[in-house]
């Protein structure tokens, strides 16, 4: 199993300790699988994604990612996991504004030491970014920026792609096009996808669905 979450609990400092954000949550995801996690605003979807991505620490339970127990990892090892195993696509794109589109696309792959020119060219073409390679993020529309973010994530051939409301800032037409493309490319790359969304329409595109309510999977 690529991802195994067991009895996970997460509280935020200062919040009501009797009502944790995530409570005794368990979930698993196999390699190549796609999972959409839905839930109301504030239900803890993004928190769970951040925990899986080793961006934050949990209070109880365990997350096994690619054979590693995250609770036992120090900052350096967690950073290495983010660099080599997981890729993230954020709602706010989080591109590096001072790098060009081409540089942003290859950035994560180069950090991981897995730059593959052929795969990058293919991604650039499939994402329709060939004409924008030398532009900077601020010169692109929201849809274009999200395509760059997806390309950056897939370019390093992650074992697990984590996407947090990847189309939350896009209109419906652009959103559908971006999602279709992302799912195609995920399938081609053989990565697993853990998608967080509040949209039922987007969630329906994934192979598996889960719903988060009051900190528990229902």
């Amino acid at each position, binding site marked *: 199993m690529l991802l195994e979450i067991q009895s996970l609990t997460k509280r935020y400092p200062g919040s009501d300790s009797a009502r944790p954000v995530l409570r005794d949550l368990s979930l698993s995801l196999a390699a190549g699988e796609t999972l959409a996690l839905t839930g109301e605003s504030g239900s803890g979807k*993004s928190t769970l994604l*951040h925990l899986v*991505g080793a*961006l*934050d620490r949990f209070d109880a339970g365990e997350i096994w990612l690619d054979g590693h127990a995250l609770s036992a990892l120090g*900052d*350096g090892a*967690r*950073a*290495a*996991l*983010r*660099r*080599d195993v997981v*890729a*993230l696509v*954020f709602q706010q794109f*989080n*591109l*590096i*504004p*001072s*790098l060009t589109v081409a*540089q942003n696309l290859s*950035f*994560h792959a*180069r*950090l*991981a*030491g897995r730059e593959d020119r052929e795969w990058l060219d293919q991604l650039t073409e499939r994402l329709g970014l060939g004409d924008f390679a030398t532009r*900077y993020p601020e010169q692109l*529309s*929201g849809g274009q920026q999200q395509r760059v973010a997806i390309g950056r994530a897939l370019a390093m051939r992650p074992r697990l792609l984590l996407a947090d409301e990847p189309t939350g*800032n896009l209109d419906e037409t652009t959103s559908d096009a971006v999602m279709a493309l992302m799912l195609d490319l995920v399938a081609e790359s053989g990565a697993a996808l853990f998608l967080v969304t509040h949209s039922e329409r987007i969630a329906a595109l994934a192979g598996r669905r889960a719903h988060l309510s009051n900190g528990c999977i229902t």
Partner: protein
Amino acid sequence: MTRVALAALLSHWRRQPLQLLTLLIGLALATGLWSAVQAINAEARASYAQAAAQLGRSDHALLSAPSGWIARKDYVALRRAGWKLSPVLEGRARLGEIAATVVGVDFLSYPKPPEADAGAPEVTPERIFLAPGLLFAPPELAVQLAAQPDLPPVVATADLPPGVVMTEISLAQYLLDRAGQIDRLLVLDAQPINLRPLAELAPDLVLTPPERGTETARLTDSFHLNLTAFGLLSFAVGLFIVHGTIGLAFQQRRAMFRTMRALGISLRHLTWLLIAELGLLALVAGLLGLVLGYLVAAALLPDVAATLRGLYGAPVSGGLTLRPLWALSGLGIALIGAAIAGAQGVWRLHAMPLLASAEQRAWAGVAVRRARFQALAGLALLAAGGAAIWLFDGLVAGFALLAGLMLGAALLLPALLDLVLALIQRRTRAPVAQWIWADMRAQLPGLSLALMALLLALATNIGVGTMVSSFRLTFTGWLDQRLAAELYVTARTDEQGAALHRWLEQRVDAVLPVRSVDALIAGQYGEVVGMRAHETYRRNWPLIAAAPQVWERLDASGGVLVNEQLARRENLWPGAQVTIGTDWHPEVIGVYSDYGNPVGQIIVSLDTLLARFDGVPYRQFGVRIAPDRVPALVTEIRAQFDLPASAVVDQAEIKARSLAVFEKTFLVTGALNVLTLGVAAFAILTSLLTLWGMRLPQLAPVWALGLTRARLARLELLRSVVLAGLTALAALPLGLLLAWVLLAVINVKAFGWRLPIYLFSGDWLLLLALALLAGALAAALPAHRLRRTPPADLLKVFANER
């Protein structure tokens, strides 16, 4: 990975070239001005050390005579007793048309004889010891001396400081007209054992142990401390720019840092990368700063050298040598500066959570707390500065007061401006005006560093300007009093002096002999001057404290006048007793101003001087005569006594020379002053430009509500001008306080005399106008940009796609 991540970090600067330029220029300016001062100080100190080592003043114990000189027979007696000594005679002499310091040594025993430069004529013992002898001189002086008739051959040597000629002691005695005299005896290192102590053999001679610092270095320490303080101030102003720019760059890259960490770069790695980036930028800026510092130092050094020569008689060459230690310290200070400026950014990076959502802090609350802390720190610094001068003594306490005052006031400025703007805002009713004042307050955190730099620069300008102008006014008045005689004449020899005196008495209203000797005064070497209480002195001498009937008592009771620096140093005011030599304790009956003289001076009646000291030179005279008769008398004296032009000088010429020395003294501080103000103006410009990226989201809503871009641009100008004007108003009392500290505290502790403060309101108005102009110029480019911003760019603020 490191290379990729570092490239990503550095790409920020490629996209923000102005920010990069600001950072590099700020750090280069800070490093450059600091390095320039260090280069000047290092050059001067190296000159002192070279001179002291060459003239045998620092490395060996010295024997000298309180009466002024050692007789040859005493030297011979000590040598016969077995002591290994080397005699030195030193004095000023005119060699042809050139005045120089002549140092006579015994080349057989002298520990550090100068070596001839390559290409100089061969030096053999015969040529040194047999007539006509040899003169050793630094290259420039050697060329000049070689052109003079009737002088022995001259050998160029780089071992001697400027203006010094070294020769065999017998030739020096001839040139100085001091046959059989020795000024000091160097006690050489290797002495036979079981010698009778020097105190027994020569009880009249004083033994001075080897000096740790040279005499000149001690005298000029305060001058160099002043320069260092200015260097530090310039460095601090430069750092304000660097701190602001680095802070902004960190702020703008927060999202990038998060993304990089999310993509697998650990916090430790990122921290090291940022430190490496800062180090790289600091090295580049440091190198630029070194070039700048070298150019500034090379431009200022000739004036500094002239000042040190004129004011202290310190031998400093006007040429600059590139010293590796100086270059290394320059790069070091650039790295330290970058570290100071970047420390907060790196610390914030560590405190920054990986997830933006975890950072939902009340920013407004944090800003208010920070401003309050800054104001409290300002008050604490002011209090610490005040306490330093109250608790401690000495120049360092004076500078501690200065530092506390300046930094404390700078830290208080944002709180003060916020208070003033809040008061104005409260009284405003019109909506646009209310927005302007509120917006100004909102902009204060971003502009505060630049405004603090401007405050420091303006206050320094006012303070130093007031000090220099007060000094000039006082000094000019003092010169008028001190140089009351119309003409000053210097004879070649004592015999000629006596003849000149007799000759002059037949032709002028009064002849005022100027006769003096060096002697121990209150345990330190100083000058004892003999004076007749002539009407000229009674009317003009600048007394600042006097017993009743001071002039009558000078002649009749053997009372003495002391100069202000000696009076303050030894607490010698009228009624006190001063010790001259070892056994003379006359009463102090008056204290007089004596600006620019680093040593203690005592005036006694001429008869007393001649009765107490032997061999008092009899060569200098002040001459009272109707001004219209001066030119004819000058011609007549030169013709009659064959004196060079430089030996017959009228009052106006001496005043012009003295004022020239004075002007040069403050030329360097003036130049640093202007540079600091320039740096501060640059700080405002760069702050406004770097804040530009954040400005559009603030202005777009107001534009959408109906204010045109042209009006918004005008308001941007107004904002900058108002803030600069308010800062200038705050700088005025601070500058006057600074002037008071400089004149009444630092000056007294550094030089020994206190000056009255004169206020020059015209200068303040000019400076206020300059501050307003700096504010307007700094805002001109951003305002122009705003005027030209396409509406589409403003609209992006409201779009999600921005």
